[in-house]
């Protein structure tokens, strides 16, 4: 009994010694700042201010998340139905003080406008998830394709691997600047190529200047930049699959597609799960590309949550509001990752 306790105690001690430095680092650089940010969200702290910090309760959260709707009946001014201008209503009616239009739709003859106190944040939230939804599959499939290609035993595959990996090593700022040139409306490579292929039939697209194409353009560029990293991880996973399985399958007469479907994919399951999670987390932190290539524009179509947090918290010096954005986002990302984990685990269990 005592011996057991002693050995258990010693084990705990050893664990503390080995884990201590890492735990201390986590506590000082992760847990403590997080708790400080949490405390900030209930205040009106600014970056530069001679004023004492005041407790403001849930004001920051209320501003960030308030959503309401404005239903307007048409006013007939003789020339057909007209709805009063939304901003005139919201700025005059104290009930709508601080609200701005987010989006709207019509319901019969009535016009419904969804209002939010911070539409830019909600739009940024949507943009970020759209980005993740687009970039994660694209990047992972591209990475898998590259990994298979590099693993196929072609000549000069080391060179090929280096080429595929080189964008990852480059600074994101530099990549962003170069791709801004490629996406340029009048002189960019993509429009020139599109024009040449279609003999001038395809009109030049203002990739980064059109709210419809700006986010897809950033998705393509980000997938290109990031795929090399996932490729490397998947490559390691591929090389971990026993060659004997492939040999056995070949003897059984399985073709390439069957081998991929029944050996490669199941063999890579854990790697793919890891790659998916890492890519999702990286995608949800989208900032540099937006900051360099579009500055959140055109008309807020590429603003992301991280971009908003920096914009409000650092550039406008409203650090308590920036902290609130970061905190809510942290909670959201945690939920997303937990759901993703749960879903993947259930799939794995069903498969097994």
């Amino acid at each position: 009994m005592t011996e057991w306790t002693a050995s258990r105690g010693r084990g705990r001690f050893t664990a503390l010694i080995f884990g201590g430095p890492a735990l201390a680092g986590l506590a000082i650089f992760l847990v403590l700042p997080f708790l400080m940010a949490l405390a900030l969200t209930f205040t009106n702290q600014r970056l530069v201010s001679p004023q004492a910090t005041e407790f403001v309760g849930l004001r920051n959260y209320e501003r960030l998340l308030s959503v309401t709707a404005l239903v307007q009946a048409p006013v007939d001014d003789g020339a057909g139905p007209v709805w009063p201008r939304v901003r005139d209503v919201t700025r005059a009616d104290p009930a709508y003080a601080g609200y701005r239009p987010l989006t709207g739709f019509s319901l019969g003859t009535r016009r419904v406008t969804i209002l939010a106190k911070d539409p830019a944040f909600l739009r940024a939230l949507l943009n970020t998830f759209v980005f993740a939804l687009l970039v994660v599959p694209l990047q992972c499939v591209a990475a898998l394709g590259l990994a298979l290609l590099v693993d196929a035993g072609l000549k000069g595959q080391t060179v090929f691997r280096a080429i595929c990996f080189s964008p990852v090593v480059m600074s994101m700022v530099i990549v962003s600047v170069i791709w801004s040139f490629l996406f340029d409306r009048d002189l960019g490579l993509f429009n020139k190529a599109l024009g040449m292929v279609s003999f001038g039939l395809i009109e030049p697209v203002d990739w980064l200047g059109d709210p419809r194409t700006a986010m897809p353009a950033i998705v393509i560029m980000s997938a290109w930049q990031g795929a090399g990293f996932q490729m490397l991880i998947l490559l390691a996973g591929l090389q971990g699959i026993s060659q004997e399985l492939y040999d056995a399958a070949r003897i059984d007469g399985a073709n390439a597609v069957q081998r991929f479907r029944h050996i490669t994919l199941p063999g890579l399951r854990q790697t793919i799960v890891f790659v998916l999670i890492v890519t999702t987390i990286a995608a949800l932190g989208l900032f540099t590309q937006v900051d360099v290539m579009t500055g959140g524009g055109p008309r807020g179509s590429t603003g992301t949550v991280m971009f908003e947090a920096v914009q409000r918290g650092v550039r406008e010096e409203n650090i308590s509001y920036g902290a609130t954005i970061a905190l809510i986002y942290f909670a959201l990302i945690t939920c997303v990752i937990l759901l993703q984990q749960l879903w993947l685990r259930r799939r794995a269990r069903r498969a097994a």
Partner: protein
Amino acid sequence: MNTRRLLIALTLSCAVLTSCGPGRTPDRRTELVLWKNQVGLQEEAATVALIDRFNASQSKWRVVAQSLPQGGYNQSIVAASLAGRMPCVLAVDAPMVASYAWAGHLRPLDGQVPAATLAQVSPAAVGRYRGAAYAVGQTDAALAIFTKRSILAQTGTRIPTLDRPWSGAEFQTLLERLKASGRFRYPLDLSTRDDKASWWTYAFAPMLNSFGGDLIDRRSMRSAQGTLNGPAGQRFGTWFRALFADGMVNRNEPDENAFVKGRAALAYTGNWWASDYRAHAGDDLLILPPPDFGHGVVIGGGSWQWAIGRTCAHPDGAGQFIRFMLEPGNIAALSDAGGGVPVTEAGAAASRAFRPGGEGRVFFDLMRRFARERPSTPAFPTISNAFTAAMRDIMDRKDVRDALDDAVDDIDGAIADNPAFAEERP
């Protein structure tokens, strides 16, 4: 081998403990720490030379300069202030003077720099807050319209002067003729490629002023309602929106050289491009005042300025340094090296480019006659971001009134959250 290792070790420890270096005489002068932003090599060298000259002339003070990267300069100041380690003399970007003064980082220049000296300085180059001067620059920048004599001749447009600038209508006609000529896909370059709030506010708020609007009501500094989104602001916004919708301006030029490469006929930018443009166009180059949209020509004013830290133990030393920097010869030396516009008549007269008859004299005249400082309020960072966001939205075809209302709500909201921003001015 061993002796060599010993030598290396000795050298290293010498580098760490500079005290064992030979030839260091003890300095009994009082050290004044100076912080400045990193700038171009020549300007950096000129400032360092000026500081050396000051130190050589001194038996009492010795200025120790440190250059900080411009990107994180503001954060460094804020951090230093929070940590109670502010330098004695510091360079401050003009739009931040009010913020710093309000936050108590700075000490007024009263008593250190005589009012008579400040009166010589171009008004926009003096950083004031609530009636007190807190900072003063040696050089400033000036915006102008750059074009070529030959281009104006081909379109039959008169050459405007400082006394008779283009009207808004004349400018519009010129743009339409240039566009119709087919030679220029986008006749005007407004440097909208630069998406930083500092450029957008510096470049386009003066145009708003010329239309009769402003970023905020400067008398009360409490609200932007009516001044930013009023009829004048809406006229300005509508005009600005049409520039992009009609293809007069490219929202994102692929590089900064639209004028030099002949893609644009007109460039609206500052004196810092003058030498490149002169090299490109030679005698054909015209440097013109921006158009008068109804309320006079206005250009932005206020660049990096010298200020004294609030906690400085020797403000008289800091004051002496700033007075030294404002001597005409020293202003001219910095201007000659960095290309900035001297802020005083005497400084300009002593400089190479900006003396009467000098090739850059027009910038000095533009600055003296038309420069308007940014609204001096600690809310300026918010104002600048809100205005920039609104103008970029308008460029991208957002409804002008909605965009300006958004900006006003941002500005007024920030001021309402921080009542001290708008306290009564003395």
